[in-house]
């Protein structure tokens, strides 16, 4: 059995990414990114939205599972609620359908970690007889559950994702659906350009539904996605596999 091997550059990048992300606002995993790229891959992902940021690093011993760490930070739109959470996470490829001209995947993930949360405007007793609005701070265990699936051909892409974060105080769920199209049936050596439409429904930290449009650039082991939501907020995602 071949021992697990990491290239030094991949390990350095993964560690430095984690260290940097520790102080950054981080966010749930991008919908379009798969938590498992291929067997013995190290996957590094970073995503930024208006009020969320996330950095995740995973290693896949086999093509059907991976494990790693996810560091994420999210704010409510009114900035009155904030959560900074880190998870140890395991991801499973529940089912893959390999067809001559298409592939479908179903993934499930579970994470356990710790979250630091704040909530403004919590009524508290400043001194006897006087209730005032305060900022409550919580440090508590956190859990994450993700279910995602996709179906793609060389020119068509579709995906959905349900991402749940739970602490004793907070419950946050984000559901995302994407449809993508590439005008050209790209090959491995080509730069693939995709146009992606997205709808996201937020519940918990924020309660809203928002559409967005993105351009995805994809070549060999690098994936970059940049776009904007209907409220003119930019989003980006970077994923690299080693």
């Amino acid at each position, binding site marked *: 059995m071949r021992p697990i091997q990491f290239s030094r550059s991949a390990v350095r990048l993964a560690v430095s990414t984690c260290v940097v992300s520790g102080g950054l606002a981080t966010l749930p995993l991008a919908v379009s990114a798969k938590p498992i790229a291929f067997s013995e891959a190290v996957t590094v992902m970073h995503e930024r939205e208006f009020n969320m940021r996330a950095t995740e690093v995973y290693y896949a011993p086999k093509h059907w599972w991976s494990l790693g760490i996810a560091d994420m930070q999210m704010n409510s739109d009114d900035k009155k609620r904030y959560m900074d959470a880190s998870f140890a996470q395991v991801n499973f490829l529940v089912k893959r*359908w*390999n067809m001559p001209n298409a592939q479908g995947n179903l993934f499930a993930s579970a994470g356990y970690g710790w979250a630091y949360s704040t909530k403004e405007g919590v009524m508290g007793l400043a001194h006897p007889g006087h209730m005032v609005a305060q900022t409550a701070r919580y440090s508590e265990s956190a859990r994450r559950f993700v279910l995602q699936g996709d179906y793609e051909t060389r020119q068509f892409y579709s995906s959905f994702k349900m991402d749940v974060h739970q602490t004793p105080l907070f419950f946050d769920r984000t559901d995302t659906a994407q449809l993508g199209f590439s005008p050209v049936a790209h*090959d*491995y050596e080509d730069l693939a350009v995709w146009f992606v439409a997205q709808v996201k429904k937020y519940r918990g930290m924020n309660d809203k539904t928002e559409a967005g449009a993105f351009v995805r650039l994809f*070549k060999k*082991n690098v994936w970059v996605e940049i776009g904007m939501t209907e409220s003119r907020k930019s989003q980006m995602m970077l994923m690299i596999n080693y």
Partner: protein
Amino acid sequence: MKKFTLAAMILAAAASNAFASSKTIQIGLDGLVCAFCAQGVEKKLKAQAATDKVFVSIDKKVAVVALKAGQDIADATIKTEITDAGYVVKSIARSDESFEALTNKIKSSK
């Protein structure tokens, strides 16, 4: 005597060609639709000791392996490695064509 020696040399050359190992292996695949898919297949095939070079085409749904001189990769190993990468092997064909000739043929085919 000279004719016999010449005939023996010709026969020896023909025999060595008959037992020469293939230069390339062409592997047909299902599920190859994106660059990450191809990267996974390429990485698995490159990790084989007998592999010299690898070419993967999403368009033609094939991977081509150039073998090192005198070496080979068993079909069972190919199937195991590709399956471990998460894909399905549809066909395996060995050839004496050079890697460059075979990959050029694949790229130019419709």
